[in-house]
């Protein structure tokens, strides 16, 4: 725990953490140690340092959603997933940075500033880096983490914690996982409780899990999944935690390659990695089939309507009256609301609220909201058909390219970026399906490239088993960070099971 805290301090320039809960973390670590000495650890997670995205409520620790609206807000309760981790002895190191209210694909638009991808400072990246001009200062080359759970992804990637919670609404866990070279799991909608997760899109949000290897993700999943009476959208079925078998024979597997995921903006590099991966399965004896998800190209537009509508609704509670920021304007209640919300929200949030309200107007509701729901059904049915035809897992790219430099990323606005970046991950949220990013290879620039596996509803075990097999095959390299080496060379020795030993 102390090592992690020290590492957090020395990697502060990454801006991955908004709040570091040093005192409580040390206390939790102490308690854990006592339990181990007594021979009574609470389980695999006892004593494991973790980080939590700052849109999960944590009792006694500030929860800001990287927004002025909630600066200083201290929740009186823990989100269910946070409570579950704490109950199993995990050590909560702090809250990680994100795009404001989880809206964005770069983790660049929060009020605490952007998160820097640890790989920007890796030997691998620095070796390959070719400055565009001599006048460019070294410091400005850093690349983004992706988003919106960029802080969590960076925290795991930089070895400051062993696992982190993110959230995933359109790809917000998988996208930064791909850019930061970590495993990012989006579970099936309804498997893990959203109680205490500040909602973005209630019908699509899920808590996401970020770890350095697939086995770890399975362990964390095991401690979080299951019905929560406080969340009516969790399924009633009893969840059985599982250990992942080490697959040796993939000949019975049927892998689907959806042709629509070969989108126009896809970089040739990623395309090549994707092909290679397909070949990997084929050569190992699996059945690899091209499939079609015909409504894929409608998903972004559909997502924009449904997402903004729910955002407009979910953000209505931030009026400055009960908690959070309140403007000094007090001429009337309405003017106080207006000023509070203008001051408290950034442009991205306000833009989505306005759009969402537009779509929900009585005269527009049928044409936009209802229509989008119908299209959503079609998108979900695409997957049903494909899985129904004998395909076990889908294999797709996670992102269009490797991580872009921050200076380049901000040239386009948030909406444009999101539109582009969500395209490969978004449909899984529409359909509520589980999906996982597995780090696969390094790009020409020395940055991580990940691939995505999408599985059947509630078949996380199968999904992660295949992911684990793939992870073993590709042997993704460990990040070589100065800071990590300085602190603890032994950390690097635990690369594969950089985990819970």
């Amino acid at each position, binding site marked *: 725990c102390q090592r992690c805290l020290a590492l957090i301090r020395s990697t502060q320039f990454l801006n991955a953490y908004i709040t570091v809960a040093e005192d409580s973390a040390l206390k939790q670590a102490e308690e854990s140690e006592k339990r181990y000495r007594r021979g009574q650890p609470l389980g695999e997670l006892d004593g494991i340092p973790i980080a939590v995205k700052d849109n999960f409520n944590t009792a006694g620790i500030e929860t800001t959603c990287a927004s002025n609206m909630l600066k200083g807000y201290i929740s009186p309760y823990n989100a269910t997933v946070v409570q579950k981790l704490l109950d199993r002895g995990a050590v909560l190191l702090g809250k990680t940075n994100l795009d404001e209210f989880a809206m964005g694909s770069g983790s660049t638009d929060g009020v605490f500033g952007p998160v820097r991808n640890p790989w920007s400072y890796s030997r691998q990246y620095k070796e390959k880096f070719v400055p565009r001009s001599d006048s460019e200062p070294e410091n400005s080359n850093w690349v983004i983490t992706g988003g919106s759970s960029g802080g969590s992804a960076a925290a795991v990637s930089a070895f400051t914690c062993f696992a982190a919670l993110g959230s995933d609404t359109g790809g917000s866990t998988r996208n930064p996982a791909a850019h930061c070279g970590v495993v990012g799991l989006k579970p099936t909608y309804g498997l893990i409780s959203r109680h205490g997760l*500040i909602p973005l899109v209630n019908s699509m949000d899920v808590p996401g899990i970020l770890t350095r290897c697939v086995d770890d993700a399975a362990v964390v999943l095991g401690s979080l999944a299951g019905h929560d009476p406080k*969340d009516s959208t969790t399924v009633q079925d009893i969840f059985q935690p599982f250990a992942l078998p080490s697959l040796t024979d993939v000949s019975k597997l049927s892998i689907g390659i959806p042709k629509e995921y070969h989108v126009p903006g896809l970089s040739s590099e990623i395309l090549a990695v994707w092909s290679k991966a397909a070949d990997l399965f084929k050569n190992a004896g699996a059945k690899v089939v091209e499939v079609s998800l015909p409504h894929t190209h409608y998903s972004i537009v559909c997502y924009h309507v449904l997402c903004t509508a729910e955002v407009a609704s979910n953000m209505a509670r931030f009026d400055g009256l009960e908690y959070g920021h309140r403007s000094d304007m007090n001429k009337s209640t309405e003017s106080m609301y207006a000023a509070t919300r203008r001051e408290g929200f950034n442009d991205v949030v306000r833009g989505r609220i306005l759009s969402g309200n537009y779509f929900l107007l009585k005269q527009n509701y049928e044409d936009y909201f209802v229509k989008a729901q119908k299209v959503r059904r079609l998108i979900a049915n695409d997957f049903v058909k494909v899985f129904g035809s004998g395909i076990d897992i889908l294999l797709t790219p996670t992102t269009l390219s490797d991580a872009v430099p921050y200076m380049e990323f901000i040239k386009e606005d948030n909406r444009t970026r999101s539109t582009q970046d969500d395209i490969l991950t978004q449909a899984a949220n529409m359909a509520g399906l589980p999906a996982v990013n597995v780090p696969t290879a390094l790009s020409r620039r020395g940055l991580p490239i990940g691939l995505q596996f999408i599985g059947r509803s509630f078949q996380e075990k199968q999904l992660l088993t295949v992911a684990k097999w793939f992870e073993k095959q590709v042997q993704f390299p460990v990040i070589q960070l100065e800071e990590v080496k300085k602190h603890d060379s032994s950390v690097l020795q635990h690369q594969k099971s950089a985990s819970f030993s």
Partner: protein
Amino acid sequence: AVASWVLNRRCVEAAVMTGLALNCTINKKSLFDRKHYFYADLPAGYQITQQRVPIAVNGSLSYSLCKDNKMSQMVTKTVRIKQIQLEQDSGKSLHDDARSQTLIDLNRAGVGLMEVVMEPDMCCGEEAAAAVRELQLILQTLGSSQAIMAEGQLRVDANISVHHPGEPYGVRTEVKNINSIRFLAKAVDYEIHRQIKELENGGTVLNETRAFDSKLGCTVPMRDKEGKQDYRFMPEPNLPPLILYDAKSLPANVNHQQVVNIDWIHERLPDLPSVKRAKLVELYGILPEHSFTLMNEDGLMDFFEDVVKQTQMKPKKVIGWILNDLLSHLKQHSLTAKESPISSFFLADLLNLLENGDISSSAAKQVFEELWKGEGKTPLEIVKEKQLELIQDQEELEQICQAVIDEREKEVMAIKGGNQKVINKLIGLVRKATRGRANPLLVKQILEKKLSE
């Protein structure tokens, strides 16, 4: 900063019971929606309600009115129930005009509400009041709600419009802030009158929300609601559709605790007020209008039944004492039957004395007044104290009668001359002489016998 709502089972059961009692169709699948607007007492910025598919629809409520204030002429009317929906309560706003501020009490925000929507089938304040009163009784009988208006357990918003016969309905106004059934009738009648006057003067009725001012007895426009709002209804994503089952559709092996079974609830519905009233009429031989009053007045029916149990007097006769003597006294002192200074036990005692012929009915009334003082004396004690026992001694009575006859030559002559009615005067005189202690029938008998001699 996060509230994920979970549906309260008891609310669902209450809504189903009420729907069944109001002859509604219970929707086996109903949905929840968000209704968005900004207001200080709505912390989420939206209210969860059932706008698309409510839990119950298309019912009816029968109620009775006395025509022209005559209890003997009761008319039965019906108002259609459009729907019953479950929704969340908001907080409470307390306006402090003196300090130009509003205080918000959020304690009740989020608590489950049941909204009963009636069709505009009522034509005046009296009908509205009677309908709501009946609804109140039904809710109390079911246990869905105590439905006390003064405590906000039953809130009534009245929608009123006027039109000439044959023409379409006029523009309606909504009247809020009505805190009792009495005020409801007043508010409705005032508003009807106001709208008619407005239209007759060439004005128009605005589609607005008005508040009832109980002190002034009129409706005034409400400041807060301006213009028409678009509530941007959206399905509530955190609450799955509400599925209710009946005996046919109930899945096998299901946990009884997990589901709501409409038929199970139907079987366990208590007797509704209309049924209770019919039973009272049948059981006790009282008139329908009597049963109405018994049930309308809080606690009166129980009091009546207690008295009936403890006395030999027939219920048909007891009812007179309850509805005339007791009720008038209660009303005069603004008391409920439960607060009556005369217990059912004492009243039964008194009626027994009367029934046994120990006292006359006028004596009984005197004892009643004494008992009302609530000094703890039993009826028998009062009778003894005031010497109100009927004279049982035949001879004594005859002597008194004879004395009166001897005194009243003129009247005796009139009776002997054929004017029978005059005998009542003599009876009255005997009664006076005995200070109400003579049985009038017996007196009449004796006088007639004597006069025919």
